[in-house]
C-alpha cells in the first residue's frame, strides 16, 4: 500500500511539535554566548561551570533523592490502596473510600500544598515532628499526592486480573502472603513499575506543593530553576536540562532493548517447544510465521 505524502507530513509536524523545543534547548546548551537567544559559537563551557555550581547540583541531587524516596513510599501505599479497592468486594463506605483515595488526582495543588503546610506546622507544635520544613516534609507531601496515581493504576490492573488465579495458588497450598509475593505481585509488576515511574516523574517536576512545604535548607531543582530564571536564564540550566534529557532517553532505550531481548528469548522457547511437539500434536500455524503475542 502506498502511503500518501500527506501522512508523512503530518507525522513530521507532530514530532516537530513535540521535540523542537527540546532540541533547541540541547543546542543552546552548547552556546558560547551568555545570551540564551543569541548563538555565539560552539562551546562546552556551561557544562564545566555547571560542575562548579554547587547550588544547582545539590538541588538536582535533592530532587532525585526526594523523587526516589517518595515514589517508593507512594508505590507501597498506592499498591495497597489499589488492591483494597479492587479486592475487598462490598463493604460499608466503599464508595467513600474510593473517592477519598482518588480525590488528590483532581484536587488543586495549591489546596493540597496549603493543607499539608498547615498539617506540618500543627504537627510540629503538637509532637515536635517534623522539625521545620525540608526534605522530610517535601517527601511526605509528594507521597501523599502521588499515591493516588499509583492506586488508580494498580486498581485497574487488579480489576482485570482473574481472582481465581490467586485462589488456585491458595488451593495448591500457598498462604495468603506467599500468594501475594509469588503470584499477584509478579503479575501486576508492570503496573506497579509504571506507577513508580509516574510518581517519580510527578515528584521530580512538582513546583507548587514543594513551594509550600520546602524550607530554607532544602530547595528542590524545579524551585531552584524557577527562582534563578527570575534573574535571567543561564545556559547552565540548559546544560543541566540536556543531561537530564540524556539520562531519560538512555533509560527508555535500555528498557526498550531489554523487552525486545525478552521477546526474542520467548520466541526462541516457543519455537523449540514447537519443534519438540511437531510429531506428537499438529499445531495450527507453522512455526516460521509465529505471531508475537
Amino acid at each position, binding site marked *: 500500500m502506498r502511503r500518501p505524502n500527506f501522512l508523512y507530513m503530518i507525522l513530521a509536524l507532530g514530532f516537530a511539535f513535540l521535540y523542537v523545543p527540546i532540541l533547541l534547548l540541547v543546542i543552546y546548551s552548547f552556546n558560547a554566548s551568555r545570551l540564551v537567544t543569541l548563538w555565539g559559537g560552539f562551546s562546552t563551557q556551561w557544562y564545566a561551570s555547571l560542575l562548579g555550581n554547587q547550588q544547582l547540583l545539590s538541588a538536582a541531587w535533592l530532587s532525585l533523592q526526594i523523587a526516589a524516596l517518595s515514589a517508593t513510599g507512594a508505590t507501597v501505599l498506592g499498591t495497597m490502596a489499589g488492591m483494597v479497592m479492587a479486592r475487598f468486594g462490598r463493604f460499608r463506605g466503599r464508595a467513600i473510600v474510593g473517592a477519598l483515595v482518588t480525590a488528590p488526582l483532581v484536587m488543586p495543588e495549591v489546596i493540597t500544598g496549603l493543607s499539608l503546610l498547615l498539617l506540618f506546622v500543627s504537627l510540629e507544635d503538637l509532637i515536635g515532628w517534623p522539625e521545620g520544613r525540608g526534605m522530610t516534609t517535601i517527601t511526605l507531601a509528594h507521597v501523599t499526592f502521588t499515591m493516588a496515581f499509583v492506586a488508580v493504576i494498580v486498581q485497574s490492573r487488579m480489576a482485570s486480573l*482473574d481472582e*481465581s*488465579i490467586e*485462589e*488456585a*495458588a*491458595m*488451593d*495448591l*497450598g*500457598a*498462604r495468603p502472603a*506467599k500468594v501475594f509475593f509469588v*503470584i499477584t505481585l*509478579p*503479575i501486576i509488576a508492570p503496573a506497579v513499575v509504571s506507577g513508580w515511574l509516574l510518581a517519580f516523574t510527578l515528584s521530580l517536576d512538582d513546583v507548587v506543593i514543594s513551594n509550600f512545604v520546602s524550607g530554607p535548607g532544602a530547595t528542590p531543582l524545579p524551585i531552584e530553576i524557577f527562582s534563578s530564571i527570575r534573574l535571567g536564564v543561564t545556559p547552565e540550566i540548559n546544560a543541566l536540562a540536556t543531561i537530564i534529557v540524556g539520562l531519560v532517553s538512555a533509560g527508555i532505550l535500555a528498557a526498550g532493548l531489554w523487552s525486545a531481548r525478552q521477546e526474542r528469548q*520467548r520466541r526462541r*522457547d*516457543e519455537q*523449540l*517447544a514447537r519443534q*519438540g*511437539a511437531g510429531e*506428537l*500434536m499438529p499445531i*495450527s500455524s507453522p512455526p516460521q510465521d509465529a505471531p508475537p*503475542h
Partner: protein
Amino acid sequence: MVQPIRKTTLDPWQDPKEEPYVRIEKVTKKFGDFVAVDDVSLNIYRKEFFSLLGGSGSGKTTLLRMLAGFETPTEGRIFIDGVDMTGVPPYARPVNMMFQSYALFPHMSVEQNVAFGLKQDHVPKDETRRRVAEVLDLVQLGPFAKRRPHQLSGGQRQRVALARSLVKRPKLLLLDEPLSALDKRLRERTAFELVNIQEQVGVTFVMVTHDQEEAMTMSSRIAVMNTGWIAQVGTPAQVYEYPGSRFVAGFIGDVNLFEGIVVEEEPDHILVRSDEVACDLYISHGAVVPRGAKVAVAIRPEKMSVSKEGAAGPGTRNAVVGTVREIAYLGQFSTYLVALDTGKTVRVTMPNTNRAAEMPITWEDRVVVSWRPLAGVVLTQ
C-alpha cells in the same frame, strides 16, 4: 441413551460398612438474603466419580467452592475424611480444585505451573522434577513443558490445569465444568482421558457440569441440583430409569409426562387414569401411592412404539391412537411427534431397523402408540 465410558463398577454407597469420604451435612449458603445452596446433605465415597448436575445458577459452583474452602457455609458442616472442615483454610485442605477458567499462572511456564503445588510442600527438587514429568506425560503435554500458558490452545491449557491439580495427588479433586470450553471432539476425548486418569490414580472426583450427557457417561453417581437443593442422587441408570420427580425426569433426557389419578393399587401393579390419554395407564411394578392420589406417569420416548392403525387396535391399556405430526430422521433413530386425540402430543423414538425408503409411517398417518407395562414410572412430586 449414551454409552457409559466407565469400565469398572464400584458401588461403595451400597456397603453399609463403608465410611463416606466427604460428608456434607445440612449445608446452606446464603448471599445476603439470597439462598444459593439450600440444606444440602450428601455422602461421597472413596474413588467415586461424583457429578453435580444442574441448570445455570443452581448452586453447583457454590457447593464446590465450599468444599475447596473459598466460601464458608452459612449453616451446616462439611467433613472430609472424617475431619470437620469448618475454619480450615483452602491451603490446608487435602483437596485440589480445577477451575472453570483454568486459572493458570500466566507468568510461569507449564512446568512451573505444575510444580507450584509441590514447591509449597517443600518436595525435594529431584522428586518434583520426576513427578512433574510423570503427570505431564499422563496428560500428553511433555513437549510443551517450557511454554507459557498463552502459547497453548484451549484444550492444552485445560490439560495443564488438570495436571496441576493432579500432581499433588490430592485425596479429593474438584472439577468445575472441566470440559465446557472444548469442542465436541476434544470434549469426548478428554472425558475419556479424565475417566481413565481417575481409574489410574484412584482419586475421588467431584465434577460440576450442566451437560447431562457428560454426567451420564462419566459418573459413578449423579446429584441433580435445582435452585440450591438436591432433587435426586443416584447412578446414571437410576436417575434416568427411575427419576424421582417431574423435575429430574424432564431435566435428564426427553420424557412424556401424563398427569392423572391412581384408580387401582395392587402389590403387582398400578392403574392410573388420565385425561390426557384415552386409555388407562397400567404399570406393572408396585409403587407406594394410595388410591386417589394425584400423580404423573413418565414414559421415555424410546420405551414407546408407533405402528399403523389396524396392525394393532387400541386397547384399554397402554395403547392410544393419534396422528403423526412430525418425523425427525436421525440415522439410527427416528423421532415421531404424535398428536393424540385428546390433544396431548407425545414423542416416540424408534430404531430404524428398516431402510428409510421402506419406512411405512409418514406425516398425517393415523397410528397407534403403545408401551409395555414396565415402561412407565409413577411420580408423586
